[in-house]
């Protein structure tokens, strides 16, 4: 024997490759955000690197844990030390010294939230597990009280009692329109026809909105639990999650959650050892904004083009396969579990008298702290933009905040102290929408903003009804000519008339809402339209009005 047999490389103690897990209860835990925003900034390498560094440093009592969205997406990748609430932002896989040092000196204790105003001003209900629970682990969800509410509901409450509790909570649909959830559940429960269905609307089409994506990526079991409770309350035995194909991570985590929940006995036949059974399947959207409208969504699940049908009949009476169908938004379902756990009165005490609870907003645009926030209804816009959002980028001047997506409106600075709830937003010509909140500063031209949304609606119009199909195209052409400095005041008046017609006569919410950005910008920023037409100047310097366009 001349050569020694090469020795196998020393094996590291076997751990889950992506998560460091100590044997006993950990002294310290590092939460590493693995939602899309942070993942696209190498968060997974941070997670793996941190686990390796912890092992190298001999810290066997430290856990490194994958969690869902920590909220402050602008500063990702994010790592939070559970015991101190210390938050590390812009962490890179090569620079983990700070986090490792912090972990080494932490002593065991209860969880603490970060102290920055971005976090302190928030109230987490729908997203309470985001950033705390591993979204890919059923055990972790259950260890944090998951599926307790479902079990309790199935064993101690009648369906009518569940609906009563939801009605008492004052919960309203979080998809935008704000229809009382309890009322909807009662309608489905009382409707004749069987089997009944439950659909979770996760076709979050509003540009600039990512609440549902974040909830699904961060806490998919929460949504499934809410759906199962809803199914029990209305008497359904199967359901679908209709999710955008543009959210691959959310779809992957959701599918995994469904598989694990079925294996764990929380979905499928005999849920939690009771007679109740509930099957869930995922259906992918395919990039049609109109499919967020409930009748179009049903047409899409039927495998057809997503064109809406006139209501009534409402899906609650005749929906999927012409049977009674409950359709709620992701965030609505995410609120169900805490309501059943803490009671309807607890929920209705949060927020304002007409808009109970909290609302998740996706804060984006020209604001410093972009990300996902959850605040009680009735929080003022100023608190959201300045206290939580940290003000405008580069210290520029606030101009407007856009809510409600393409059916919403722009709210100017004079309403910064307005409380945000369903009614007040409608009062200023906007709309709650699904929760996108886009902050604009003086670099945005409001005519161009209206044109942007009209372009969106024009492209997304399904083409079924004439007012929407033709009207949005004509409105876009008129807006385009204004931004090129070629329009007259007569055309502005014509545009207003046409916008009113489209609003009154379109079949579904897409067309009815499409003129809203025009109305709201005209209401508060008419002078900008007039500058384009009369002075042929774009005040924000966005629109390229060239001298050659001057009519001879």
């Amino acid at each position, binding site marked *: 024997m001349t050569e020694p047999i090469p020795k196998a490389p020393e094996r590291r103690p076997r751990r889950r490759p992506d998560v460091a897990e100590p044997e006993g209860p950990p002294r310290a835990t590092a939460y590493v955000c693995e939602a*899309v925003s942070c993942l*696209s900034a190498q968060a997974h390498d941070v997670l793996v690197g941190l686990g390796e560094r912890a092992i190298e440093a001999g810290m066997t009592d430290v856990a490194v844990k994958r969690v869902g969205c920590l909220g402050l997406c602008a500063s990702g990748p994010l790592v939070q030390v559970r015991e101190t609430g210390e938050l590390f932002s812009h962490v890179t896989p090569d620079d983990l010294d700070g986090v490792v040092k912090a972990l080494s000196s932490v002593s065991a204790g209860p969880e603490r939230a970060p102290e920055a105003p971005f976090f302190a001003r928030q109230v987490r209900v729908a997203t309470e597990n985001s950033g705390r629970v591993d979204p890919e682990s059923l055990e972790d969800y259950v260890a944090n009280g998951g599926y307790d509410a479902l079990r309790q509901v199935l064993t101690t409450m009648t369906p009518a009692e569940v609906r009563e509790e939801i009605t008492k909570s004052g919960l309203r649909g979080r998809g935008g329109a704000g229809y009382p959830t309890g009322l909807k559940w009662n309608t489905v429960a009382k409707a004749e026809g069987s089997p009944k269905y439950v659909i979770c609307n996760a076709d979050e*089409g509003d540009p600039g*909105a*990512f609440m549902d994506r974040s909830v699904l990526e961060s806490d998919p079991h929460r949504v499934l639990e809410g759906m199962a409770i809803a199914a029990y309350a209305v008497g359904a035995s199967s359901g679908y999650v209709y999710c955008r194909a543009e959210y691959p991570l959310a779809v992957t985590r959701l599918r995994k959650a469904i598989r694990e929940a079925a294996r764990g006995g929380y979905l499928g036949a005999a849920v939690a050892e009771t007679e109740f059974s509930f099957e869930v399947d995922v259906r*992918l959207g395919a*990039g049609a904004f109109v499919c967020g409208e409930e009748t179009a969504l049903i047409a899409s699940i039927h*495998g057809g083009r997503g064109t809406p049908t006139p209501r009534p009949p409402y899906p609650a009476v005749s929906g999927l396969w012409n049977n009674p169908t409950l359709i709620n938004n992701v965030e609505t379902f995410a609120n169900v579990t805490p309501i059943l756990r803490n009671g309807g009165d607890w929920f209705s005490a949060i927020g304002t008298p007409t808009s109970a609870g909290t609302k998740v907003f*996706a804060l984006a645009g020209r604001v410093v702290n*972009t990300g996902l926030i959850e605040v009680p209804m009735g929080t003022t816009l100023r608190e959201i933009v300045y206290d939580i959002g940290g003000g405008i980028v580069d210290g520029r001047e606030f101009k407007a905040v856009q809510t409600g997506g393409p059916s919403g409106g722009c709210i100017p600075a004079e309403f910064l102290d307005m409380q945000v709830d369903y009614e007040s937003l409608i009062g200023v010509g906007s709309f709650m929408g699904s929760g996108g909140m886009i902050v604009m500063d003086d670099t945005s031209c409001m005519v161009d903003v209206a044109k942007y949304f009209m372009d969106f609606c024009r492209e997304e119009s399904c083409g079924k009804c004439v007012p929407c199909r033709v009207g949005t195209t004509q409105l876009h052409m008129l807006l385009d000519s204004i931004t090129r400095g070629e329009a007259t005041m007569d055309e502005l008046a014509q545009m207003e008339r046409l916008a009113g017609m489209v609003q009154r006569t379109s079949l579904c919410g897409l067309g009815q809402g499409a003129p809203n950005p025009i109305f709201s910008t005209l209401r508060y920023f008419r002078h900008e339209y007039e500058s384009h037409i009369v002075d042929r100047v774009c005040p924000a310097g966005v629109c390229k009005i060239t001298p050659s366009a001057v009519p001879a």
Partner: protein
Amino acid sequence: MPVARAKPAAPTDDKRWRIVETRMRRLGNRPDALIEALHSAQEAFGYIDDDALRYVGASLSVPPSKVFGVATFYHYFTLKPQGEHTCVVCTGTACYINGAADLLGAIDSSFRVKPRETTSDGKLSLLTARCLGVCSLAPAVIIDGEVEGRANPTEIVGRLERL
């Protein structure tokens, strides 16, 4: 009354058809599996060609007119092969506010390609997305599946040139 039909054969013996076939079978080969079947065909082949449309339609008993109608209604489906590399520019509101139009302009002037087109050498397909949901990183671009946040035109053109 359902009539027993011969199971349509896959257009070629490419193994990827098995993925599509399995997906359809799991959903009971029912007409409402159409969108799911088109998704799996696009995932397997990158785009949906006429053969795929016919095969899916025949398997699910959906007439070709309806299959084509559905495949063209939804923006997510593409009936043309993509270039070697793809670049998706998000045009959601947050990206629009933060300059997505400048990105598209810069890419067009460097590569002579407009959204939903492929360069003449077949190297680069340019696409736009309504909203990728990474609004915090606006403006966002996805190059070959990797998200580039806070994209600026010079950097993105540079990255595309190096592909």
